[in-house]
């Protein structure tokens, strides 16, 4: 299995009025070709920062403090902007969270899709471009595609717009598709449609997919592997069945318990006490230690060891 993306010890900081926010802290991640990796985490976990880093769309106040991302053998940290711009939209495509704002209201869908196709295959004739656009729209489940090519974004609903974004990402024929919470802004039944769409598309898609979500269930249904993030670090990763079936890290265990319990009305609900640490001054040692029921004094002082597991993946915990 060859590696498409190799994130090595990546640390990213944001400059804010309050000081430097350590959004990512020595994150390592491997995405093999043809695999679907899910990245789950809650607020402050750094999962969105990681998604932006992969697409090289970090905001101006972000700084790569350490580490790097190696994309198909090329280290991205030292590359000039024009090389990165050439990668974006061609070899790395992104589906964003908010379908409302990701499309330009002035242009028709045909223009949006056409731009993507022409960038990827400049030599195509106009008729062929149109044919591909129609084919992809139909494939993502938009009926009457030929007519809808002439419409503008505001004439589509949220779910439809998300399908258009997915179509645009696929038309770029990328090696890596980064989906940053693509279903979060959608209604429940529409979310189910999009998840189902991803399920049918992934089998035909030759590249790798990184699917960022706060929903463990969605990742469990769609992905091969999962990476669990907390406060800017990776706490556990591995095959989906292993991580969700036999979680090794206390945070993963607690999170799964919170999501899957069915106490019936009347019993007290589970939660993880405390709050995510302040990322301006992250605590020494394991970031989850202040909230961990099983923390030892060592946990609070020294960074946790990375313990590979026999049945796949690894966890960053003394107890793993």
């Amino acid at each position, binding site marked *: 299995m060859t590696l498409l993306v190799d994130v090595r010890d990546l640390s990213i900081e944001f400059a*804010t009025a309050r000081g430097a926010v350590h*959004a990512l802290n020595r994150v390592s991640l491997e995405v093999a070709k043809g695999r679907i990796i899910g990245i789950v985490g809650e607020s402050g976990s750094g999962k969105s*920062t990681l998604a*932006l880093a992969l697409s090289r769309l970090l*905001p101006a106040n972000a700084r790569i403090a350490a580490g790097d991302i190696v994309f198909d053998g090329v280290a991205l940290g030292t590359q000039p902007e024009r090389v990165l711009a050439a990668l974006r939209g061609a070899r790395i495509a992104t589906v964003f969270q908010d379908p409302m704002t990701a499309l330009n209201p002035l242009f028709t869908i045909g223009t949006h899709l056409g731009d993507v196709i022409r960038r990827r295959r400049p030599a195509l004739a106009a008729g062929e471009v149109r044919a591909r656009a129609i084919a992809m729209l139909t494939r993502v489940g938009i009926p009457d595609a030929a007519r809808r090519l002439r419409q503008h974004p505001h004439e589509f609903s949220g779910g439809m717009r998300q399908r258009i974004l997915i179509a645009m990402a696929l038309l770029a024929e990328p090696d890596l598709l980064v989906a940053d919470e693509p279903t979060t802004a959608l209604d429940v039944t529409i979310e189910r449609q999009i998840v189902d769409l991803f399920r049918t598309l992934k089998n035909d898609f030759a590249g790798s997919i990184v699917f960022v979500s706060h929903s463990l269930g969605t990742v469990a249904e769609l992905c091969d592997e999962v990476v669990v993030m907390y406060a800017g670090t990776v706490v556990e990763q591995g095959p989906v069945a292993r991580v969700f079936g036999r979680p090794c890290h206390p945070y993963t265990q607690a999170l799964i318990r919170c999501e899957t319990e069915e106490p019936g009305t009347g019993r007290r609900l589970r939660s993880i006490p405390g709050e995510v640490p302040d990322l301006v001054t992250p605590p020494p040692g394991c970031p989850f230690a202040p909230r961990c029921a099983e923390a030892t004094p060592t946990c609070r002082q020294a960074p946790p060891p990375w313990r590979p597991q026999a049945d796949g993946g690894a966890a960053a915990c003394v107890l793993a």
Partner: protein
Amino acid sequence: MTAAIVPVADGVAAKVWASATGRIGVVLVALVLAMAVLAPLIAPANPNAIDVSNRFAEPGLAAPMGTDHLGRDLLSRVLHGAQIAMVVALAVIALSLTIGTALGIAAAYAPARTERLFLIVFDVISSFPSLVLALAMVAILGPSLGNVISIVSITFIPHFGRVARAQVLTLKTAPFLEASRAIGVSRLRLVLVHIVPNIMGPLVVLASMDVPVVITIEASLSFLGVGVRPPLASWGTLLYDGYSYLTQSFWPVLFAGLALSVATLGFTLFGEALRDAVDPKQRQVP
């Protein structure tokens, strides 16, 4: 989301002082205000004391800015001119801001037809260049300090009214207004306690950037002879007098013009620094 609507007011003063242009603006504004307030105390002579034997004196110890065509001390006249400029500017701004805001809020909450009426009135008033309108009204009503203030205020009311209305319309859907109504807050209290403080930001910035405009309008009116009347002397009057006798002495025009420029520049720089400091955009970590 409310953060994007309501500008953050923390540290505005510090931000204004931190920028170079802001600092210059603050200093000049302070200078002009000091001149206006202290004029009666620090003026070396009575600004209206005529001494025909001392016409067109060069600047010197007795008269640091020289004298005009009637031998009146220019420094004293410039200082009192500052007083006129400030009184008119601040009175006009205060009046038009208050009335304009009140009308703007009323327009935002009024039923559609009434609101359209408000907007038509605003549009009619603001479609006249303010100077032309002021000229016309002063010609009808006669020049005096009170009239100048009232008339110029009227021309600025639509300015604030429209901005106030736009602000209220953005705010109308804000959850905190609904939450306040859910507590039982009355309409009046809602406007005074919850709406007005949250729309003042842009209005205050607008007001500070309008001060130089008002100063210039007042000076223009006085220059054209339809502003304040003697014994009051505004910079505009000084400019007119100085211009009439320019061949005999350029000092009056120089000093009056300088004073006007310093005041206009100072308030403009201050207003711009204020606008930049009250920035509604907030940076968030993604």
